[in-house]
């Protein structure tokens, strides 16, 4: 087990190296001058030159990358061009918002998705099944932007139950979590249904029923547990996406999370911020996938990592 985890963690090195090269190259391929964006249209050439020099943007690209990599290896992600704050500080400020949001959203999608999937699978071809299928399709297809604004209209403007965006209290997270959770719950519901149908056809389910076990136990203890592996995979992926890519939700609800940090960084050509945040997102993605793989073993004792 430990050897396996170590091996997986070692794989992080090439992944992060790839991400750093990729994000660096892509960012610098995009036209636009961070100094000009920072200093505005009115800035004089003297000011622009000074900003470029201060952030080493006047040096050749390979050297810029080498300097960046050298610092990053020592844990120094650099200074934001826009705000002059250390990138690590910015990420540390933003990441908790994203983490909380992603966690709540995955709870929402687990509750909605798994229940809907199980119900649909056990009552295959019924109206409930159809409703669940349709609901999940709607969940997948609805643009987050639209759903978010609609929720704000209903729950903030009309009913005044929750604040219309911003952050600070737990109430601020309810709507974003629902919106983000709804999007992934559709995928999870479909995966749960398909996986459950597969399992319900197995001999051991028939055996369990033949033993006279209650249907509840058959479904939740015998079938669902065995159907969990593919569902877990989707969970892991969705959670990973939410951690790095909840940009739309964060934008609609004005949550200062990491997704927005990246997008705003791209618009401002704030190279250090985008590169640093990409590294963090890549790391969490790998970590979440690793945790998912480890979790397989909990549900299926046949899976061993050694």
């Amino acid at each position, binding site marked *: 087990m430990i050897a396996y985890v170590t091996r997986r963690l070692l794989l992080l090195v090439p992944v992060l190296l790839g991400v750093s090269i990729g994000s660096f190259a892509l960012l610098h391929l*995009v*036209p*636009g*001058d961070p100094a*000009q*964006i*920072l*200093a*505005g*249209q*009115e*800035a*004089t*050439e*003297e*000011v622009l030159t*000074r900003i470029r020099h201060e952030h080493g943007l006047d040096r050749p690209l390979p050297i810029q990358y080498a300097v960046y990599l050298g610092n990053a290896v020592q844990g120094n992600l650099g200074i934001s061009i*826009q*705000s*002059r*704050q250390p990138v690590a500080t*910015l990420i540390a*400020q*933003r990441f908790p918002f994203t983490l909380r949001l992603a966690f709540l959203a995955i709870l929402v999608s687990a509750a909605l998705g798994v229940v809907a999937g199980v119900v649909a699978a056990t009552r295959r071809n019924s109206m409930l099944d159809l409703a669940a299928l349709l609901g999940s399709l709607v969940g997948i297809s609805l643009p987050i932007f639209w759903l978010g*604004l609609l929720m*704000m*209209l209903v729950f*903030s*403007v009309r009913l*005044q139950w929750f*604040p*219309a*965006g*911003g*952050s600070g209290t737990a109430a601020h997270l309810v709507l974003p979590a629902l919106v983000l959770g709804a999007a992934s719950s559709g995928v999870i519901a479909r995966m749960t249904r398909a996986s459950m149908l597969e399992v319900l056809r197995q001999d051991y389910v028939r055996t369990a029923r033949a033993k006279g076990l209650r249907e509840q136990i058959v479904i939740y203890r015998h079938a669902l547990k065995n159907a969990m592996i593919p569902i877990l995979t989707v969970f892991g992926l969705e959670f990973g996406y939410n951690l790095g890519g909840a940009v739309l939700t964060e*934008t*609609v*609800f*004005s949550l*200062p999370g990491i997704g*927005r*940090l990246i997008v*705003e960084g791209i*618009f*401002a*050509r704030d190279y250090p911020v985008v590169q640093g945040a990409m590294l963090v997102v890549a790391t969490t993605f790998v970590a979440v996938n690793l945790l998912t793989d480890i979790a397989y073993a909990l549900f299926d004792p046949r899976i061993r990592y050694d």
Partner: protein
Amino acid sequence: MRRAPALFLTVMLLGLAALSMTGPTAAQQAVRGGTLTFATGADPDSLDPQNTQSNPGEQVNRMMHENLVRFSTSMQLEPALAESWSSSKDGLTWTFKLRKGVKFHDGTPFDAKAVKYFFDRVLGDEKPFKASLYAPVVQSAEVVDPSTVRVTLKQPFGAFLFIMAHSAGAIVSPAAHQKWGKDLALHPVGTGPFKFVEWVKGDHVTMERNDAYWGGAPNLDRVVVKTVREDQARVLMLESGGADLIVNIPTEEIPRLKKDPRFVIESNATARALFIVMNVKKKPFDDVHVRQALNYAVNRDAIVKELFQNNAQVIPGPVSPLQNGYANLTGYAYDPKKAKDLLAKAGKSSLKVKLWSPKGRFVKDYELAQAVQQDLAAVGVEATLSTMEWGAYLAATKAPADNTDRELFLLGWSPSTGEARWGMFPILHSSQLAPKGDNRGFFVSKPLDDAIDKATLAATEPARLGALRESQQIAINEAPYIFLISPNMVVGSSKKLHGVVNLPLELTYLSEKSWKEK
């Protein structure tokens, strides 16, 4: 039963009448206290006024800091930290009499030494971003007595008071600057009506009342400026009561919000000019007849009325009416026939051009470019319209002449000093050619250069205004741009909020007089 709706309607109307009678009819007594939430589209870039470059930053700074002189909402100069001022005949020496008994938020006294400290900072080695406003103009500053400062200029400068009223002319506490250095941006200390509490990046800035404010203690207890990027989300925040004040309301939401009795929607003219720059290094835009023809081709009145629903105004030249020094000259009237004639005379009866526009940087920018595209098509000029993200757009429109295929491109310019010299010099003077400067269309005219220089060096007000008028006339005649419109700033607030300051420099902020009904 058939009478019920009528009865219902009567009751409703009576109710409404009663409501409007209890509403804010007479001038109301200001109420003390309360927290105001202001939702704006972007985070401040800095809270150190000498290093701040963006409107979201400037408007927050203006609540905490003050200048020697300030702009009124009609862009006239009025006393602030200086009670009076005078200049020598040659325009080289300016003497400011300072307000006495004023203290910075950290207790440091505001006096001549603090003002000198400001000048030493912008003229010295630190070179904050906005030093470029002062360094070319100011020679030095000296303390005459604790409440008198004398400033010596390098050459007469007609717009000196305007650069002093610029957001970057705010006087910060010398003690705070010494203590924090570059981190002053995170620990602002001024003399303004509101004191800094905290800045959570990407989320909000909180300020609280400065009870020692020289203009009287402010009414509001706290001001929270929240960053809400999504336009629609800001509107929803206003509607749900999550924000008392919002800016940059999408044009299509204005009519609906205006009808809602809970809100006040204010549409105010700004100093910004929007125009389409022509690259005069590319044929046929080197020909003044072609440039004039394109100006005649555009129906500005229709654009203002249809596209902007009157939340904009036509501008005759490069300067908008709220820039100090604007001359009310005749621009290009809509005359497609004349446009066609001029094009025919230039031998360009049909023309294919490239038209670029940003999308979302200015109000309705892309739609504006589309309207121009249609008008141009009507006179035989076929324009292909393309857009770019703002950062890329800025870079692409600033590339050197031999390394670009740009022809027509939409841009906006709002002189941050609020006066017309800065409305023309950076974008039309031949010393400012791209990629070094902001003259992105490579327009060069000796007469225009001379007229702008005359305005720059003017020692008297009539000389300044005269030279600015001459400059605008030359610019109109030469037509380096397709002059378009000046868009309004549209600000929405709860009806319970009073005394919001909307400066035509697209800055919205609160003053000590602002207050909120309970």
